[in-house]
């Protein structure tokens, strides 16, 4: 499946670009991510727990960044193996452009699943992938922007703590 969407982020392009390259930001943004380590150059290693329809599994996989044009575009590619649950692969082409009020982050996402995930979850995988992408970029936006009134998080205080904003945390050390 393929889907495209965009988000307006109230931050300048350089800030958004730096955030895209951060393992910490990615960890915060990938839904269900338990661990994320690595660097943009070497690629990231991730552990993600997700439930797709009837299948719940821990996916271990790698995320690589490629086709990087500094400040403009990059491709995120991930592949996760969930053991008996099968596998999920996905990619996102991300482009940044200046827009009034900040930076427009446009993305094209492609997702594939295999094994038990495909056998049991294929009917719901499109919706699932859309939800994952929406969550990822929405969280990304709020992490980059820091907390605002309109993204009040209803997950409670722990999440709110994180919502200091990526830049704010960088600055505050």
């Amino acid at each position: 499946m393929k889907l495209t969407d965009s988000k307006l982020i109230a931050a300048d392009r350089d800030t958004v670009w730096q955030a895209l390259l951060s393992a910490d930001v990615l960890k915060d943004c990938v839904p269900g991510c338990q661990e994320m380590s690595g660097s943009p150059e070497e690629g990231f290693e991730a552990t993600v727990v997700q439930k797709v329809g009837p299948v719940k599994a821990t996916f271990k996989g790698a995320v690589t960044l490629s086709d990087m044009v500094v400040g403009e575009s990059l491709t995120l590619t991930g592949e996760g193996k969930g053991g008996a649950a099968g596998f999920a692969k996905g990619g996102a082409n991300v482009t940044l452009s200046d827009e009034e009020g900040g930076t427009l982050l446009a993305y094209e996402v492609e997702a594939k699943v295999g094994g038990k995930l495909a056998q049991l979850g294929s009917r719901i995988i499109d919706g699932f992938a859309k939800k994952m992408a929406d969550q990822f970029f929405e969280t990304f936006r709020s992490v980059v922007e820091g907390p605002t009134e309109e993204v009040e998080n209803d997950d409670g205080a722990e999440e709110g703590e994180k919502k200091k904003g990526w830049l704010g945390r960088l600055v505050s050390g």
Partner: protein
Amino acid sequence: MPKDSGIGASSKRREDVRFLTGTGQYTDDINIHGQTYVYFLRSDVAHGKINNIDTSAAAAMPGVVRIFTGADFEGIGSIPCGWQVTDRHGEPMQEPAHPVLAQGKVRHVGDPIAAVVAESLEQARDAAEAIDLDIEELPAVVDMKAALSDGATKVHDDLSSNLCYDWGFVEENKGAVDEAIKNAAHVTTLELVNNRLVANPMEPRVAVGDYNRANDESTLFTTSQNPHVIRLLMGAFVLGIPEHKLRVVAPDVGGGFGTKIFHYAEEAFCTFAARQINRPVKWTASRSEAFMSDAHGRDHVTKIELALDADNNFTAVRTETYANMGAYLSTFAPSVPTWLHGTLMAGNYKTPLIYVNVKAVFTNTVPVDAYRGAGRPEATYQLERVIDKAARELGVDPIALRRQNFITEFPYATPVAVEYDTGNYPATMDKLEEIADLSGFDARRKASEAKGKLRGLGVNCYIEACGIAPSNLVGQLGARAGLYDAATVRVNATGTISVMVGAHSHGQGHETAFPQVVAEMLGIDENMIDIVHGDSSKIPFGMGTYGSRSIAVCGSAMVRATEKIINKAKKIASHLLEASEADIELKDGQFSVAGTDKSVAWGDVTLAAYVPHNYPLEDIEPGLEETAFYDPSNFTYPSGAYACEVEVDPETGKVTIERFAAADDFGNVINPMIVTGQVHGGIGQGIGQALLENCAYDENGQLLSASYMDYAMPRASDVPFYTVDHSCQTPCTHNPLGVKGCGEAGAIGSPPSVVNAVVDALQSGGHNVTHIDMPVSPSRVWAAMNNA
């Protein structure tokens, strides 16, 4: 007056007592002391190169006995294919190796890569998760036509292409058929898909391998329709175990529908591994595994052309079919789109010229093989759909067009190499018109329309070739086995009888119907007779049950063996009665001397055979046991006419089956109730194919329909009450019972009438829809109605 026993009686199915009370003994009920469990790690990519399999961490997991990979099967045979098709250029089909566990490459989702044998299934499954697989995913071929294009990825690198064979039949007729189509007054063309199905027997496949080191004997308990065939294929071709050291047992089996004919890797694995570790090894498929490892059915893409002259006589049929073989050749896969399909393309009609072209294609999908009907549903569907389309194009009544072209003289040699011995197609059509109340259809359509529904009527005929088959003929056609069957009638001292039959009963009711035949011949109570089946150590030999062959072939062997029993018993009776053997008559279990009141009872004769104090020992041996092998001289040709009435909801496209009638000619019928049940089940599966079932792959070869959430099996609410009749009986001329077989008819005869009815309903609503592919789902109907 219906009979209450013997041939023609609706004796109650005696096996149902144990099935319905939970006392059946299925393969999964077999547990042997010291048993281990195997879990197969299967590929979750459709096509890939195996770079490495690291089992070291998994091997150290708790309870693991041993882990096997493809490397353990170096030098072990390939899972064999039982039928070699010769292509239209005289070349043998391409036949790839089929290893027990993948070697080098995986070729479909579900291809077994490694097998973990452990003390418990849970431990085996946990350890399988710890196997470190390095598989490089390769592009997959899924679409058959794309698989044949230049530069397509090859499923098997050592083959020249993904084409298994390009078969032409009858090749010599090709020019004449092309000419007839060119010169026809009218040609109707139809392109269609015969959807891929998964058989889904209620009981998944199970195998238990056992090895007795003391006498070097292996035993395989397996969910098979033909244990002797498995013994032959696995013993001789895969594992190299001689017959006398290999016993194959298929106990109670919960449905087969074709998919349990074939020899599967898991059977060979359990037998092999039990010898290696010297402990029993058990495998029970999960339903998910069944979806990705049981051979699938159908999956043809066909273009058919029907040529007619100016008087609407059929002059020629030409077809071009792509048949999916999947990633490997399953046991009888090559025969299904060819000899079980091309030979049926005459249908019930005297079309003089027929040419069938079939391209069998390898793809990165589960292997495809016989499923209830096997080739004959594919033939019937395309022929009966194109005839219906022709009738619409010509503006003639579809029943009248069929009647006009019926074969009416028998025996009839078709232009596709078979000879129908008997049949009466106008009679079954007459019967259908009566039982389906076709004259009342217009009123029912008006009633449906008053409710805002569209109502359609679809009719079709079918012919099938059953009772598979004359061995000398199938040998010429490429079968690597004979297709006779065998029975031993063992009469005990007190007159009770065990009949060891080569046919296997997995729902057919043999345990009831077979004794009815012997009881009729001997004039004794059916309950004195049991059949024994499904164990290679107990029965003489058997080619098993498929192709509606059990009563026609194995039943005939049983008749021949019983005739031998009668002949010997008459000799004994003549001695006891001090009369000439020629004067001895057997009636109602009494041997009597013709024209006298002297008689001796069945039980006295059988006792004399085993206590031969007063016995003609100089002429005959003691004992009363006879064996017969029967090889038929022709196929049998059941036929019939089916009618389906549907309602279509124009708002949603949902189709409901309102009425279904089947008029079949099965020749003589042993047990009408069982035959009715077989027809019901077959129609249920045919309706499933027509409306609901579809095995779906995505473009990467991922299997998308592998659970009952995604694969729609027909349920009770999806089918109507059927009206079934089998009173039109033209007995088979060449077997002793005059029977034709009924197991597959319903599944063969029903899909075209359903689709014909849906098209009729849509046309009645003013929608110019000429075809919808199966399954005729609400979304497809709605799209067709709305040109979407």
